[in-house]
């Protein structure tokens, strides 16, 4: 039982005004998430330039300094400046998040579109493979991949991409299956539009927003997964400054010098929260069907 309140034509308005009146501008979560994400990207980009110390330079005269003083967030057991390591680490995290987000988006969209649009046996086989991949917990899949290929940044990215592509693909497939029978697709076929044009001009643009949400979520998870792999000794290898490595470095000092792990963990938590809020905000403003689709499946 809806009250239809807006039947009449809407008067055109400038872009900024439209933005101000869009649901995004009123969604607190979205604004906070976008704010954190923008800040994160900014810090990651300029981090290496504003870092006060070399993130790799050890200084055994000044190990385990508490926060404050010369070292804003203190030093670790090698006397390395935590703040500098975190600033550099932001870059690695951004890179992982960005790469995983865009790669899983790219592959997921291709696979999902194929499965959803071609249908038939292509769909069945791809769906079966996707389901098998989905049955392996994502982190397990990433772990196995890194174990096989070795612990480098590239491999961590590929591993997490491998783990999250099926999730993007399955959402993409669902969205395509939802879009495909819509009348405007039929209508374009009826005027003689060819299939590739159809996918490019109608299917993709309409499917992308919810899938981008999933990709945002997988970017967030990529940061978590990278940290998890580092923790197990399978991530980007030390002494590279990544947030996961900083947590692991601080682990023996959790009782005496907890700031090391806590500051790195907090960085991860804040950025991941930001990405999740951003994804949520976009999802909340999408149409309800897509909200459900992305809700249940993408959270793995």
């Amino acid at each position: 039982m809806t009250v239809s309140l807006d039947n009449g034509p809407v008067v055109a308005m400038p872009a900024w005004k439209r933005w101000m009146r869009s649901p995004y501008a009123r969604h607190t979560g979205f604004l906070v998430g976008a704010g954190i994400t923008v800040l994160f990207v900014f810090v990651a980009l300029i981090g290496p330039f504003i870092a006060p110390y070399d993130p790799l330079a050890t200084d055994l005269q000044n190990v385990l300094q508490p926060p404050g003083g010369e070292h804003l967030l203190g030093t670790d057991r090698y006397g390395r400046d935590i703040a500098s390591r975190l600033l550099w680490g932001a870059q690695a995290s951004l890179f992982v998040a960005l790469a995983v987000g865009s790669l899983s988006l790219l592959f997921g969209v291709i696979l999902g579109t194929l499965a959803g649009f071609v249908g038939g046996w292509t769909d069945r086989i791809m769906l079966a493979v996707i389901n098998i991949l989905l049955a392996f917990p994502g982190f397990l899949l990433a772990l196995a991949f890194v174990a096989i290929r070795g612990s480098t940044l590239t491999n961590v990215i590929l591993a997490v991409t491998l783990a999250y592509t099926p999730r993007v693909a399955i959402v993409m497939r669902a969205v395509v299956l939802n879009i495909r029978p819509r009348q405007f697709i039929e209508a374009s076929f009826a005027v003689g539009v060819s299939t590739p044009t159809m996918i490019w001009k109608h299917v993709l643009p309409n499917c992308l927003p919810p899938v981008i949400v999933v990709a945002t979520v997988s970017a967030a998870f990529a940061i978590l997964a990278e940290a998890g792999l580092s923790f197990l000794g399978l991530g980007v290898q030390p002494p590279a400054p990544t947030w996961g490595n900083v947590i692991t470095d601080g682990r023996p000092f959790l009782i005496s010098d907890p700031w090391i792990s806590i500051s790195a963990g907090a960085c991860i938590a804040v950025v991941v929260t930001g990405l999740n809020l951003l994804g949520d905000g976009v999802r909340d403003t999408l149409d309800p069907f897509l909200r459900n689709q992305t809700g249940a499946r993408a959270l793995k």
Partner: protein
Amino acid sequence: MQDGGAVPNTADGNPSASTASGSRLSVRGLTVQFAMPMGIVRAVDNVSLDIAQGETVGVVGESGSGKSVTFLSVMGMVRQPGRIVAGSVELDGRDLSQLDREELRGIRGRDISMVFQDPQTSLNPVFPIGKQIVDVFRAHLPISKDEARRRALEVLDLVHIPEAKNRFDSFPHEFSGGMRQRVLIAMALALRPRFIIADEPTTALDVTMQAQILELLHELKQEINIGLVLITHDLGVVARSADRVIVMYGGKIVEQGDVRTIFYEPRHPYTVSLMRSMPRIDMVRGERLHSIGGSPPSLSGLPAGCAFHPRCFLGAERPKCRTETPELHDAGRGGHRSACHYANELELVSTDAPKVGEVVARAGAQTTGEALLEVRDLRMHYPAASFQVPWNRKVVKAVDGVSFSVREGETLGIVGESGCGKSTLGRCLIRLIEPTSGSIAFRGSEISHLGVRDMRALRTDIQMVFQDPYASLDPRMTVESILREPFEAHGQADARTTHKIKELMAHVGLNPEHIERRPHEFSGGQRQRIGIARALALKPKLIILDEPVSALDVSVQAQIINLLKDLQAEFKLTYLFIAHDLSVVRHICDRVMVMYLGRIIEAGDRDTLFADPRHPYTKVLLSAVPLPDPDKERARAHVVVPGSVPSPINPPRGCHFHPRCPSAAALAGSMPADELEQLADGGVLPKPCVNAYPDIGAEADGHVQACHFVGVDNQNTGTRGR
């Protein structure tokens, strides 16, 4: 009957003197606002009305008129962001708006209950229907489960659920739409409330189902003394059932009065226009329908003064209408009130367009053109589920051996209830769906086997307009890109395309300056115009119109129908018009085919077919459509058929219609036993009906039908008249 009727009438000043004693529901100065992002929206504006127990009040209005919100407020069920900001709702003098939540809950379902539009979604799918009715009893009465069950069975019997005992534990999905609506009515009736608010109770149903439900409501009203509010956009339904009528527009009541007064002596231009713009099944109103310009206003941007003035045939230029909001005032006998400054001027205006405009005789020449499209034995079967075991394949025979031809320049209508295969047929013809077998010849050349490329080329000749103007346009594209698409798809896009697009827009009545706008910036009617422009872009010969007006408000519907007619004349178009609304079909089509379960059961010239329907199903269909004319409607005979359209997965043997056919049942009584077939459910029917699908015959006048016993008149089943 533990409560209800016994309460004495405490209200005074009954505006409609026609009804007798009983409770009274009074709404005074009700104003409901919604806090929306774009600002405060007043959905209901100072509405006052009275409903007495025992009367049926029809509430009519287009989408956004505030009719539903008014009655949700009455029930105390307006939710955030909506809020009642002024006014009162009194039930026998008790102000419901002052009650707390628990007291209000006690009123709902017990004193006032509600029936909603969509029976598919109104029952909780995870509980058996019996439990849902039992819950209603137990929410209000301290009775045992068994007692509640006994009473629930009683109400189920009351609404004619067959074998209620056995179906008590069935789930909603095991019932047809009509049956579910009965269950919902049973729920609403369970505690014998004094008032039932039925919000579009038949809109989601097929006409034969609608007839059943209207019949049921009528019957119940006679048995139980309830005040029934019938919210609807369908004037036919009102004409058939209501005692009084309230017409709403832009959140206000614009006219109210006795049903005959409203239909025959309306005193508000909106009511007049509404009456005129409705196509009628019983007559042809001439070439053009009266249409109201523009579209129903958005509640967020109501015009100043009289909300209707921009669309009014009287007031558009009158300053008073633009500045002064008219209040309801007496406009005639029996509580007839109108909110028009110039209500008196309407005394001489009649609702029947033919008397106003001129009756244009139809030019029969158009129907004798060459056959443009020849369809022979077309079939479209598809598997009923995606995964099936090979030894038990179930097939949906959506289109099952259909042959017909479309002549150049004519409009061929295809009608039928949902599930009859008419839309599938339309899509098969331009091969949006690949038919399973059969031939389709366009201008004599076979197109059912054309390759993708040739078929795309053919789409310059055959085009389609879709039902849902909201879904059929890509929300992300501008009008320009939507209309450019056909040109690009066929390599015809060039420097002049933008100019052509603007021309097209002008042709279909859109402002060419809006070329950069996106679909959501247009109203429903305007969007349908975009859809039509897209179909026209390549100058096709044949346009398949798939329910092009069924999603539109009545006033807009008329505009689009007129537009389609104009375009047909201008571009020498041939139409294949698919619809479920027989009135529209009667208005626009030259020839009509009736489909039932994938087959054509009757086809013929429009006037012949409507005047002299031969197949029992056609007769049933025609009689089920309510006429927007109280006297005629109540005087005529209604054939109500039992059951609903069977599943096309397993259609009945023999004539698909035989299980519901009133003629066959009646015939059986007068036939010798050896010509009858015993049925599983104990009934007997003539053997041919059960055993053989009747061939569609051919007659000289082109009027064909598929019934074994045509001409045997049997309208004595389920007939009622007033």
